[in-house]
């Protein structure tokens, strides 16, 4: 994984366009797309417990404007997959996975939405038990189930 990242950022000329267009960078100086990539190449393990890695909102403005076509969001995804394998993930993501595994959807149908749906005469949106079984089988092949047990 590391060699792939290293290869992908060789072409970065450190012009800072990614930082200039980044709304998160404007709110928090700790978050710099360019810096995260460069740190990853030097020593990816420094990023395992680095909170700023989780601050990207995935708006894709950086990759859209990058003059060298460095795809920061895709590189960050690889990096986060690597960090996840080392056990560090935001609680919200674990919850998301637990919900999908249990209900098929990222959220639960709450009482209020159910009442509203009935009032509008909308059909039941819940996936069938068979569908949930299929989703569980996909999640189990990936090894992600470890996060569900934790969450």
């Amino acid at each position: 994984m590391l060699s792939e990242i290293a290869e992908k950022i060789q072409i970065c000329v450190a012009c800072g366009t990614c930082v200039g267009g980044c709304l998160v960078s404007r709110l928090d100086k700790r978050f710099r797309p360019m810096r995260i990539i460069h740190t990853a190449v030097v020593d990816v393990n420094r990023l395992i417990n680095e909170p700023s890695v989780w601050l990207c909102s995935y708006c894709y403005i950086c990759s859209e404007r990058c003059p060298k076509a460095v795809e920061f969001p895709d590189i960050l995804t690889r990096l986060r997959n690597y960090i996840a394998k080392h056990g560090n993930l935001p609680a919200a993501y674990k919850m998301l996975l637990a919900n999908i595994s249990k209900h098929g959807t990222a959220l639960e149908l709450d009482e209020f939405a159910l009442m509203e749906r009935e009032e509008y005469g909308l059909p039941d949106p819940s996936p069938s038990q068979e569908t949930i079984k299929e989703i569980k089988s996909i999640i189990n092949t990936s090894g992600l189930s470890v996060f569900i047990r934790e969450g």
Partner: protein
Amino acid sequence: MKYALFLGCMIPLRLPNLEYATRNVLAEFGVELVDMREATCCPDPIGIRNMDYLTWLAIAARNLAVADEMGLDILTLCNGCYETLKTAYVTLTEDAEMREKINEILAKANREFKGKAKVKHLLEVFYHDIGLQKIREMVKRPLEGLKVAAHYGCHILRPSEILKFDDPENPRKLDELVEALGATPQQYEMKTLCCGAGLRNVMSEYSIRMAREKLVRVKEAGADCMVVACPFCFIQYDMGQFEIRRLTKERFDIPVFYFSELLGYAIGLSPRELGLGMHRVKVDRVLKKIR
């Protein structure tokens, strides 16, 4: 026109009013919708993809396979679902090796990605399949005098080489749709700014501040309201105005519409048929402005 309706999670489970409005509006245009009873979460293009890329792709491919079996193109109502499903479609269509790998995973669930069903966003259906001309003909209550700031959202525009919906820096299609309703598209600074939804569950304060950045500019430009094409953007700007008030004491009072609602009102549906009473920032004042 007939589509497999991909509801996703946010609209059916948190904002059923937007689903209701959209179904009612599409029925007026004679569009037939078939519910995807075997669909699941798209899955979410940030959380799940960031845990494990392959799992994300496999779950998305399974949803595409469901539509393949239905023999219909997919209609999505959410930018997040659109990015996930379309990116998965493009990836699996172009990368034979990956397609084989994913189909091996899907085989355990007795599914196969065939790549027949295409993925369309609601705005694509209105803009390309129904068309501006047909929309203009259907308008019974032109929204004259209403200045509408269009917010496209990130995941309908970018990554543009995959989504190919509109110009990622200077999008026009939602503005043209607004114009077709008789309203005036209000231009404002930094139109392609992110709503901040991607950080809502990870760093909520930043998420709120990101929504604020755009609301400041929309307000400065003098828009009467905003129109969005995604339930996440909708929540960020509608409910978000109350979160901003709590955080910075600023008050914007800018009503936010999901595109189907604005279109529905223009073609003569009642506020009740559009579920307009469910908004956090009330819309009545703005509707009264229409000449």
